[in-house]
């Protein structure tokens, strides 16, 4: 039976690995698109993954300040998504042209 601290350290490393993989997957979606809303959605998800990173780093380092960082990042991410959505809503892009290069799986 492991001690609590050892278990926590191991799970933090494991969680960091999982988060790294999801980070790469989401970045792939940001780069590939194929449409603007896809990219916005992926950026939103990127913020969620980053918040996860911050939480795990907070546990690993024991700094309580990371909680504030996570909250601030969530706020900024939400505002960014809302601003992007309003940009799409205001007709800043042409959906038909944007979709033309899209390929379906």
């Amino acid at each position, binding site marked *: 039976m492991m001690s609590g601290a050892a278990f926590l350290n*191991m799970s933090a490393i494991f969680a960091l690995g999982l988060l790294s993989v999801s980070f790469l997957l989401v970045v792939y979606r940001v780069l590939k698109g194929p449409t603007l809303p896809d990219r916005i959605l992926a950026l939103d998800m990127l913020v969620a*993954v980053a*918040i996860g990173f911050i939480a795990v780093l907070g*546990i690993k380092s024991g700094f309580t300040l990371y*909680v504030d960082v*996570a*909250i601030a990042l969530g706020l900024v991410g939400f505002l960014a998504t809302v601003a992007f*959505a309003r940009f799409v809503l205001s007709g800043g*892009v042409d959906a038909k042209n944007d979709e033309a290069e899209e390929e379906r799986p």
Partner: protein
Amino acid sequence: MGDIGSYLAGILIVVGALFALTASIGIIRLPDVYTRMHAASKAGTLGSCLMLIGLAVYIGEAATTVRALAGVLFFLLTAPIAAHLLAKAAYSAGYRMWQGSVSDDLAETVQASKKNRQAEP
């Protein structure tokens, strides 16, 4: 901080990271922006919330825990609003759904309101 708190925090962050990973896989695999939104807004939100709760459990100090829980509440409130706004924006900008979609009740309404708008001025 006892051992139980450590175990609980460890389990919470691993489960949260697993949910974040499935949300990312969903974003890669699902066919259109609307279905991807399902993955991001549910599994993604739950993932980051679980990890924040893990942090709150680990710190176990009243002021910080309250702050972390306020953060969780905040994410639960904002994530669906962001998803909803993005879906609405994408739909009204004309992004179509995946070909395999089976029904679209919104299409008629949007058509009708477009006609109204053109008829008005």
